[in-house]
């Protein structure tokens, strides 16, 4: 026992004299980061690279992989369901992002003042976000059951009903969008509240002394100073709409992509190809294209908004 302790002590002592303080800090730094760096590499970095590799392979009948070159990409080009998926994805994003922006900002403005009442209201608006999407999907599906669901009855009573929310290809996607907005708006409300808090009060006070009404104050103070927050919100909600797990969960549980592929966003189609038909290579090819498309869209957005910094040009 003593010898072990002694050797250990000697080794530790030797270590201290061998490595300078600087090098010890280096080693400690690497060791502390190691578990996370390794995990992120294996479970995020490698999959991203592997996606490209898989995209030129096909799973053959024996469960092995065979090289097929660009065949998966050609197949994609000729697959009407891929194009349908791309179109539905774009539609979903184009509807979801502005709606989330308006609802998130609207709610934030509504409960901006810090008092007890608003604190309770904020929690109520945020509450849907605490529930899992599987539950959310089930509850909404139940409420829009044709003719007898509570929302179906309500809309019929208001004279705007008579259609099937999830069964009619013309309404299924918009129904999914509305449920997504309901689920996500509390989260974006919080982000906007954070942004609103950073706007100095004095600006409003000065504007009011100058006689600016509420609309003018919103237009000339709130909106311009909220640009960094808006940039963040649009960016994050766009990425979430195109490739987020939330969209997948809601659609997978509520419609599985139907009816007539009306809600078949690409991530759902990719999943069905991979885990429904075992077409791993094809699914990986589509996922790679989706990532590239997402990168292009965000890069364009980034360039258009100058990285959200919005330096004034003059």
């Amino acid at each position, binding site marked *: 026992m003593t010898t072990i302790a002694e050797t250990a002590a000697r080794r530790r002592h030797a270590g201290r004299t061998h490595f300078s303080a600087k090098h010890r*800090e*280096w080693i*400690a730094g*690497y060791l*502390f*980061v190691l578990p*996370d*760096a390794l*995990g*992120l590499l*294996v*479970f*995020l*970095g490698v999959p*991203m690279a*592997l996606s490209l590799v*898989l995209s030129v392979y096909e799973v053959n009948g024996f469960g092995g992989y065979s090289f097929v070159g660009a065949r998966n990409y050609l197949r994609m080009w000729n697959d009407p369901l891929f194009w349908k998926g791309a179109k539905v994805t774009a539609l979903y994003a184009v509807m979801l992002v502005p709606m989330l922006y308006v609802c998130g900002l609207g709610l934030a403005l509504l409960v901006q*003042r*810090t008092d007890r009442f*608003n604190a309770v*209201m904020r*929690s*109520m608006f*945020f*509450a*849907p976000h*605490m*529930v*899992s*999407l*599987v*539950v959310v999907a*089930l*509850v909404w599906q*139940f409420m829009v*059951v044709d003719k007898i669901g*509570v929302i179906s*009855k309500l809309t019929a009573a208001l004279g705007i009903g008579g259609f099937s929310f999830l069964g009619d290809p013309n309404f299924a996607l918009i129904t999914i969008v509305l449920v997504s907005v309901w689920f996500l708006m509390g*989260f974006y409300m*919080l*982000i906007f*509240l*954070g942004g609103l808090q950073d706007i100095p009060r004095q600006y409003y*006070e000065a504007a*009011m*002394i100058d006689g600016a009404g509420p609309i003018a104050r919103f237009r000339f103070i709130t909106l311009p100073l909220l640009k960094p927050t808006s940039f963040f919100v649009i960016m*994050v909600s766009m990425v*979430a709409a195109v*490739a*987020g*797990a939330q969209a*997948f*969960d809601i659609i*997978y*549980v509520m419609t599985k992509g139907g009816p007539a592929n009306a809600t078949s966003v690409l991530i759902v189609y*990719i999943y069905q190809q*991979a885990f429904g038909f075992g077409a791993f290579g094809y699914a*990986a090819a589509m*996922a790679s294209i989706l990532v590239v498309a*997402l990168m292009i869209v965000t890069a364009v957005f980034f360039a258009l908004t100058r990285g959200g910094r919005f330096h004034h040009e003059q």
Partner: protein
Amino acid sequence: MSSKRPQPYFSQSQVTLVRGLWMVVTAILAVMTLFPLLWMVSIAFKPATESFSSNLIPQSPTLDNFIYVLTGVPFIRYMVNSFLVSATVTIVALFFHTMAGYALARLRFPGREVLFLSIFSTFLVSLPVIIVPLFVIVKAMGMLNSYAGLIIPAIFNAFGIFLLRQYYLSLPKEIEEAARIDGAGYWRIYWSVILPLSRPIMSALAILFFLANWNSFLWPLTITSDPNLWVVQLGIANFKSQYSASWNYMMAASTIVAIPTLVLFVIFQRQIMDSLKTSGLK
């Protein structure tokens, strides 16, 4: 907090009126927002025959739906699985992320910025776009249909590391110096100085991680086919295909799944909302 603002246009009574109207509108919207959740709970207490009646308050409330879900289906097993997975992921993730966050914020070593940027760049990689290769890797590691497969890949995310690093950057330098003069090594500093100081942000992150994993669906759906390993979200999604007409059972099951997270939220709403609010931009 709220400073008195000048109100050059309106008299005091007009201001009160506007404020009152504002509050009414807010309250109506808030109740509308909560309605689906209230409706879920309402159906959970209604017998099957009453599922599609339009009254929010059940006429003959019953606990039968809950009893059936908890005894007729292995729902308890799903809840235990979910709890085990979520708790393990949370604890291990917090351990690793505090370590990485501490090193990235307070230690100096070559390549630190590059490392941080690489970690940060995985921020926007979402599960659906890497699910196929991730499945292939996890399968190759022999972790299909195992708790390891449910837990290990879920541990690593850039969000937690990023938030913790930001938090550690804001701590004053003197805190560690005292410990270093006393001869403490880096591990000692991390364990007995940094970790105790991280308690507030750790509790916020713990809630977020736990919730995210309790609610996760796509990954468990992909790698578990063995019903003994099902987490509660899979159990309830599967419930739908088995009992497609029994909405009263489904709503009872949904309520059971939603209650733990909603209770957590009611208790910790301040921490949850504050941590999310600042996570966006700073």
